């Protein structure tokens, strides 16, 4: 726990010193194991104009286990569960792919990258992924409507 805190503080300082584009971070309380995240939809993406609130939760045995990242703002996306949890489970967020040398920043950048380009081959919402692959226009229409409705 003390070990995790040291590492988390270090990462927080690094991110603050060199803030990534379109991402803001705000630890919820002093022990730093939960962060509020805000990601803006990349300009060139269908999520442009939206601001998405996310919650980052760090496990007590961080960094030996991956962080947990979830969308608090409703989003129409093949890699985010379409329920009140907004869970994500891909790439380095999975414990078999996470390595203790991975960083929170990489997780956040991956999330923003997924707004730029969803990954339908590793989807949690298979029907949305199907639509993304086969009927892009319909996908974009719903995604944009949701941005308007939930992410403004």
């Amino acid at each position, binding site marked *: 726990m003390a070990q995790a805190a040291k590492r988390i503080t270090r990462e927080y300082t690094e991110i603050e010193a060199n803030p990534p584009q379109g991402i803001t971070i705000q630890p919820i309380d002093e022990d730093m194991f939960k962060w509020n995240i805000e990601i803006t939809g990349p300009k060139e993406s269908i999520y442009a104009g939206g601001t998405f609130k996310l919650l980052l939760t760090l496990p007590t045995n961080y960094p030996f286990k991956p962080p947990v990242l979830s969308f608090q703002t409703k989003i129409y996306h093949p890699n985010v569960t379409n329920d009140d949890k907004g869970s994500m489970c891909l790439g380095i967020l999975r414990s078999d792919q996470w*390595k203790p*040398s991975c960083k929170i920043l990489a997780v956040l950048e991956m999330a923003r990258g997924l707004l730029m380009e969803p990954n339908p081959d590793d989807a949690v919402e298979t029907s949305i992924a199907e639509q993304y692959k086969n009927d892009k226009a319909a996908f974009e229409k719903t995604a944009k409507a949701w941005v308007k409705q939930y992410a403004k």
Partner: protein
Amino acid sequence: MSSDDEFMSDQLSDDQYEDDDYSLGELEEDDDRYLDDVKDEKPSKKAYEVDYKVHSDEQIRAAQQIQIEEVSSILGLPGEQCAILLRFFKWQKDRLIEKYMDTPDEVLEDAGLGPGYEAPAVLEKLKGFSCEICCDDERGLETYAMKCGHRYCADCYRQYIESKIKDEGEASRIECPSEGCSRIVGSKTIDLLVPSEINHRYRELLNRTYVDDKPNLRWCPAPNCEYVVDCAIRPTQLHSIVPTVQCSCSHQFCFGCGYADHLPCPCLLVKKWLKKCEDDSETANWISANTKECPKCVSTIEKNGGCNHMTCRKCKHEFCWVCMGPWQEHGTSWYNCNRFEEKSGSEARDQQAKSRASLERYLHYYNRYDNHDHSAKLDKDLYVKTEKKMTTLQSSSGLSWIEVQYLEAASKVLQQCRQTLKWTYAFAFYLERNNLTYIFEDNQKDLEMAVETLSSLFEMPTDQLANAKKEMMDRTAYVNSRRIILLEDTAKVLAEENWKFTVDLKQ
């Protein structure tokens, strides 16, 4: 009931069967010393039986050692490296040798055995070192790196490996903790860093991966059982055979899917059926209730044995627990408690009527499936009670212990047959109606009637039971023969792929 995922969890994917260079393990005839457990092939194999062997944990270890040594002598590499290579190649020995002959450096690199692998694993203290994982930079910190040079403090390295072994059950594919580095953590590193009990677990897991990687091997799913079953049946054959095996621990299970004995129902139908039952559990719940009303006088009747021949205590009306029809009909040739009567097409015109008809049809089969499941438990309870009473009787009447063994035999057969009957209903649910269906249903009916008769014998008063030994033994033998006939007939048609099912078994 197990979930869908669990059910097929250790099913191997089809692509692993492409290179067909497996024999029955690498445990061939010349390795007879490792095969003392081989079941003798019975002189006349039944159509529903498959060939298999049971191996102990030690035999599995020994089989691995033999292959490691063989590869080691061919490739001229140390045993430990060959073990890593074999695991990396999922024990496809010939493919490994072939590839290694072509491109040795590439093979070694891919398996994490690149240049300089042989150097011993040691901890080092370095000036000005800061651990990237825990951010510790204390002086005198012990550090470790494999040949890839990704160095972390020994504590972090150990914690990483321990969590892989303990939490994720990983062993043969633990990579360097550095992101993007796929060097495999070998046993030298493990020996240096982790405490002995976790090292022990690591060895166990390595042993497990061998079985998991070999399509002809499967761990016995019974809790705490350490035997491995060796059977040549592949997933692509499961539409034509139900490969049922019995472990040395006596547990009977399906080699195809790992589920408990589900003869005569093919794996895919079992999977579909269990899924359906789970999805429809609410609709079906009411019928598994333990009490019903007498169809004649409406007084409440509780079922306490497995037998489905009920007699109302109040009005003495005899009826069948399953279909609630009068019992007299069950003893005659027009017993059709097992058969679902399809309503004529005109009755099911609109959508609502159709869905009601399909629910009724499902409930018909589910009811009977569930009832045999339940009755098997009741039969067992009743046997346990009976055995107790018999023991008391023994001491008062001077009967020897051996003389009540027929009761245990009868109870076992009864439970096995109920298990079979249970799955005949899942089987029948997916069956399309044709001439063969009638043969199946007749077999099912004959077994069911035989089972109910045997089951009812257990409800006799104990003092009478002691005199019913001959009848009990005859009934037991008869029930058993009905089971064999049913399984034999069903398996033959399945092998010829002549059953018509409502779902495609080859999907």
